[in-house]
């Protein structure tokens, strides 16, 4: 095992997800001795971002998880009379895994050469080729965006952790309206430049958004709608149908059941984040959401936090008195490690800590496609709230291209997320069917012979992305749905609504995994709350000093650029 760990800590953190990593950084930053462990050999837990190969390994591990037997330590040497040992759990939080390929294992060389000599052979995507490009993929288990004026952006800047990350702003917001995709005008510039909306409607839209933006709790505007839905309110305003749709689904990211004031608040949040970076309210972390926990871990380490992956708590040592119980430390690899506070991701918690069985979940889909859901001249980074999921619950769709380092050139990654109803494959079907082409591409020579070469060519055209743009009207190109080359569906737990402190010793804090929201607000909030409980009088992530001079401080900004790194103003 090599070097041994020091055995006394102020805070032991188990799990390197977003919430745990923020807490670890915050504790280390104020001089606490932090030990940060993760049972996996990668950072991030359910927030991780993987290469294609690494994702395959993750899938394999998920399949094997059931067989994992929890070692029950009966060894009493660690504990004294009043103390008890509690075995840690390893809740399997992933289910309904469904991985599908839509392209052949490998394209027979003669097929590509003979039939399509005019095309480059590398226009063919086959499984082998995708696998060979494994490292060009950064596939998120929990893709999330940052509101430009949200709490994470503020925290990154105020703590100076922003220097570890780079961002790209979401370049467009789409909606699904009248059976097709449309761009939602969301900045002032957008509103005036859009052609989908009449001048009259533009005025209505602007006026409406202004009302929401200016809303104060004591105002009159929303008086009669406090018990009604946001949709009711919008309908009362004599707006055109498409304007109601834009505001309700795309800007307020709501549904027909969303209460009025919730809708107003969300609209405000959206509007207040406009115009800070780029022309939508959202930022995407370059290389994927899994970068962000790592940024906080880095800060923790810089301030002396100790890191050990592939290591976790096998059991907890808990002192029980009449009134309460207190955690004294953990047993890890046969070593007792004492701590004042223990942060435990809920998936690691002993089952006796969990009052309820979790029944909330997320349905996730990841798709590799050959084109954008809505092609445009420049590569876009797209957010779409697909309004018509199961039971009218929206499905969040994020599409990213190669410029975000999410995938190789010529391919797109489409993420879908919604609350779990049955299983991911079923839950996401409404959006998948409308947005994507999920026909199996069969390059078996015998098939193409029977269907005739033209049918084959059609298939080829769709999945190679080799459509000749010049031959078609723009409009037509837009309507070609992307062919899915590979798809992965899974469900995971969503514990953000659960009370995680009921049966837990007073110095143990359970943290949730990724929540259903589009942003990181929940993780930041939970981290802050836990930190405040541990250290009520300490500052939460005060600004970390710069090295002698600010890195890249005089690097110029190229205007019109979508990429942004966050650096604080002095």
């Amino acid at each position, binding site marked *: 095992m*090599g*070097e041994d760990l020091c055995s006394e800590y102020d805070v032991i953190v188990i799990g390197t997800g977003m919430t745990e990593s923020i807490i670890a950084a915050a504790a280390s930053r104020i001089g606490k001795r932090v030990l940060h462990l993760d049972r996996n050999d990668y*950072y991030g837990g359910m927030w991780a971002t993987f290469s294609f190969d690494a994702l395959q390994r993750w899938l394999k591990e998920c399949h094997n998880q059931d067989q994992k037997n929890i070692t029950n330590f009966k060894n009493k040497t660690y504990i004294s009379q009043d103390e008890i040992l509690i075995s840690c759990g390893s809740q399997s939080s992933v289910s309904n895994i469904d991985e599908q390929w839509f392209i052949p294992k490998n394209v027979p060389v003669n097929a590509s050469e003979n039939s399509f000599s005019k095309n480059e052979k590398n226009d063919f995507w086959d499984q082998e080729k995708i696998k060979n490009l494994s*490292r060009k993929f950064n596939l998120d288990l929990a893709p999330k965006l940052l509101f430009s004026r949200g709490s994470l952006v503020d925290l990154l*800047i105020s703590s100076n952790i922003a220097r*570890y*990350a*780079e961002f*790209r702003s979401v370049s467009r917001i789409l909606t699904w309206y009248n059976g097709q995709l449309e761009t939602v005008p969301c*900045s*002032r*510039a957008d509103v005036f430049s859009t052609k989908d909306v009449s001048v009259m409607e533009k005025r209505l839209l*602007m006026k409406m*958004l*202004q009302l929401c*933006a200016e809303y104060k709790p004591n105002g009159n505007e929303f008086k009669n709608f406090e018990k009604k839905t946001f949709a009711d309110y919008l309908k009362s305003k004599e707006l055109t149908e498409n304007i109601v749709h834009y505001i309700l689904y795309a800007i307020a990211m709501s549904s027909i059941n969303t209460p009025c004031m919730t809708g107003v608040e969300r609209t405000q949040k959206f*509007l*207040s984040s*406009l*115009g*800070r*970076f780029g*022309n939508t309210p959202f930022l995407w972390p*370059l*290389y994927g959401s899994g970068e962000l926990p*790592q*940024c906080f*871990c*880095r800060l923790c*380490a*810089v*301030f*002396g936090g*100790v*890191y*050990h*992956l592939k*290591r976790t708590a096998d059991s907890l040592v808990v002192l029980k008195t009449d009134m309460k119980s207190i955690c004294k430390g953990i047993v890890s690899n046969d070593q007792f490690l004492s701590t004042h506070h223990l942060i435990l991701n809920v998936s690691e918690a002993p089952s006796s800590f969990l009052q309820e069985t979790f029944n909330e979940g997320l349905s996730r889909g990841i798709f590799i496609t050959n084109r954008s859901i809505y092609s445009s001249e420049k590569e876009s980074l797209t957010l779409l709230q697909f309004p018509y999921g199961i039971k009218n619950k929206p499905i969040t769709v994020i599409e990213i291209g190669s*410029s975000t*380092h999410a995938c190789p050139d010529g391919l797109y990654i489409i993420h879908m997320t919604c609350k779990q109803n049955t299983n991911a494959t079923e839950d996401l079907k409404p959006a998948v069917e409308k947005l994507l082409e999920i026909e199996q591409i069969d390059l078996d020579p015998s098939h193409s012979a029977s269907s005739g070469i033209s049918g084959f060519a059609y298939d080829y055209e769709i999945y190679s992305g080799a459509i000749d743009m010049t031959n078609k009207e723009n409009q037509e190109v837009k309507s070609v749905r992307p062919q899915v080359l590979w798809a992965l569906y899974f469900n995971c737990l969503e514990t953000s609504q659960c009370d995680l402190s009921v049966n837990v010793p007073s110095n143990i804090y359970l943290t949730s995994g990724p929540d259903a929201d589009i942003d990181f607000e929940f993780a930041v909030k939970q981290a802050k709350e836990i930190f405040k409980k541990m250290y009520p009088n300490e500052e939460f992530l005060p600004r*970390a*000093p710069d*090295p*002698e*001079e600010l*890195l*890249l401080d*005089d*690097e110029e*900004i*190229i205007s019109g*650029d*979508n*990429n*942004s*790194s*966050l*650096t*604080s*103003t002095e």
Partner: protein
Amino acid sequence: MSNFSNDVLTTLKILIIGESSVGKSSLLMRFIHDRFEDDLGLTIGVDFKTKTVVIDGNSVKLAIWDTAGQERFRTLTPSYYRDAQGAILVYDVSSRVSFVKLELWLNELEMYSNRKGIIMMIVGNKIDKDKREVSREEGIQFAKKYKSLFIETSAKTKDGVEYAFDELVQKIIETPALWENTRYRQTQQLTDDNITDNQSSCLC
């Protein structure tokens, strides 16, 4: 000397990796502050250091990243390696183990570095010590095998330290593919005051 030209040609990210206590932080301290401490302890707060050097009349800004102790249990984050143009791989000439383990660090670098053709400098440190377990020849052979630059140093006596960094930077600059597009790459630092002001922050 660094004020010779205000125009910074490029900013380079350089990593220092290798086993614990081979002298990585000491090399960084020596290079940046020309200082040496007998016991750096677990250097807290060392994140990365910057320094501007002049290569062929051009200013080049270096951002040299320390491991922040995350090398101890080989838990460097993949994002640590991200976008680096150069890597300094350090072993301790008085510790064979540290030399043998260098292979693992090379693997990790190869696994996570996302820039093609990252320049490597293998450094055998602590040559001031009487005890030696790795000969210079062995070091050279090893570096050859991995097409890496090589130098022996002492952070304590200053021997070779300047050379290690200069040589690495020189080689990077001679390989424009590694840095040329970074200036125009779409990943720029954007400061809080560089808010796009052509759009109002709200629609009112």
